């Protein structure tokens, strides 16, 4: 065992994670990509600076108290020094810092215009449900563990939770905001440069909390319109207009691969996947797990933790418990490798 570790250490500096390859992990906290993260980062640096100055003063005073000349020691221990250093200095500095900090971050809590784009994100143990809302608050598109937004525009994120307290945090785009069961918190985020930003749950929420993440993708204008267009053309979907009790039309499309003749769609339905997962346009209508309507176009699996390809999909379905221990999806190790592959092939096509 020790040999194995020493051998590995000569090959790379330290054991690494798939996270490291996928995006900067942990997401960089002092690299703002928008105005809401900007002010938080400026405040953070100011507080770090203040901390350094105060620590330096205390260390200098300590040195004087121990090794300094006697007349300095007398001054330091005198009543005047206590009044100035102990009361006046902290009061003035902290009051100034408070006023400056509140002014700086006032924009974080300013009301946003009514027509601002809204996305509702609901925390579950241990993944994020994502719903895009229209102007009237209807859900027009459902997704999971992935947030898409246009560059340069503020977006209101409505934060809720279905079970315990989670916290929504995209360090590049804003501060943290708690997701609390029974209420809706609002957070405004904005990305000023296109890119992919990692997000995490920032409140311990049990077992695999550390494996509860998501990706935020900021598209520039043309890219954003293409994305919206692609989504609405491929699978027109108005979630709230599903008629209760009516089984949606069944699409006959069966995904087969040259090497796999099994019916992935039927396996998905028959193996019980549909009890927890919804795929719009099919009878799969479960709501306990992430919506898989567009899982084929998603970048990650397992709530922002694995790249999405056929291999990782098979590995996730086959034994998600070894990847994310304690998550609420059982390991489907009762299926054969061919069956797992057939399901993965079918899910790949859900875009």
């Amino acid at each position, binding site marked *: 065992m020790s*040999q*194995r570790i020493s*051998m590995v250490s000569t090959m790379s500096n330290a*054991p690494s994670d*798939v996270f490291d390859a996928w995006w900067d992990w942990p997401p960089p906290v002092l690299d703002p990509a928008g105005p809401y993260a900007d002010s938080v980062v400026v405040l953070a640096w100011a507080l770090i600076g203040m901390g350094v100055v105060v620590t330096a003063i205390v260390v200098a005073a300590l040195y004087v108290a121990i090794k300094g000349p006697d007349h300095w020691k007398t001054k330091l221990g005198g009543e005047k020094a206590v009044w100035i250093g102990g009361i006046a200095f902290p009061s003035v500095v902290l009051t100034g810092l408070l006023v400056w900090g509140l002014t700086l971050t006032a924009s974080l809590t300013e009301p946003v215009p009514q027509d601002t784009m809204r996305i509702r994100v609901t925390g579950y143990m241990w993944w994020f449900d994502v719903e895009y809302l229209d102007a009237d608050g209807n859900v027009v598109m459902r997704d999971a563990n992935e947030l898409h937004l246009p560059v340069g525009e503020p977006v209101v994120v409505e934060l809720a939770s279905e079970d315990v307290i989670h916290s929504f945090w995209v360090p590049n785009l804003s501060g943290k905001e708690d997701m609390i069961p029974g209420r809706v918190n609002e957070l405004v985020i904005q990305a000023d440069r296109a890119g992919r930003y990692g997000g995490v749950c920032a409140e311990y929420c049990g077992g695999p909390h550390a494996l509860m993440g998501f990706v935020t993708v900021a598209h520039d204008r043309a890219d954003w319109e293409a994305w919206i267009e692609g989504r609405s053309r491929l699978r027109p979907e108005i979630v709230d207009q599903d008629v209760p009790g009516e089984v949606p039309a069944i699409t006959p499309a069966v995904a087969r691969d040259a090497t796999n003749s099994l019916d992935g769609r039927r396996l998905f339905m028959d193996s019980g996947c549909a009890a927890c997962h919804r795929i719009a346009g099919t009878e799969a209508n479960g709501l306990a797990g992430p919506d898989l309507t567009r899982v084929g176009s998603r970048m990650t699996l397992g709530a922002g933790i694995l790249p999405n390809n056929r*291999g990782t999909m*098979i590995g996730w379905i086959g034994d998600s418990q070894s990847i994310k221990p304690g998550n609420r999806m059982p390991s489907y190790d009762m299926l054969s490798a061919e069956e*797992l*592959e057939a399901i993965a092939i079918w899910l790949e096509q859900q875009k």
Partner: protein
Amino acid sequence: MRAYLSIGLSVTLCASLAACKQPPGPRYAPDAEATDRGLEAIERVGCAACHEIPGIAWPEGRTGPSLVGFDDIGPIAGALPNNPENLAAFVRNAPAAKSGSTMPAMPLSEEEARDVAAYLYGLDDE
């Protein structure tokens, strides 16, 4: 007499020790840059979702076999002659390299597949 005996014994011991076979070294000695690139490729495509792989702290998937000490295993996937060409072909497109393989093709370029093979050959457990 005793002195001769002990000298003779030492000589015999030394000779027999020298005759002992050295433990075998790694099957191949891939260069460090290729193994580094191989590890990056392994992380990017998520091989560890199914395989336990030394050097990857998380995940340690169990859907596929563990790759600990990979250098010492026999044929690739129990079927193919164990050489770099076959390994690179297998990690990139397993069903094509070994008919009936349940490992799917992975999104790797041929160059990346060779790097992944280099990394796996570096996993010498001895």
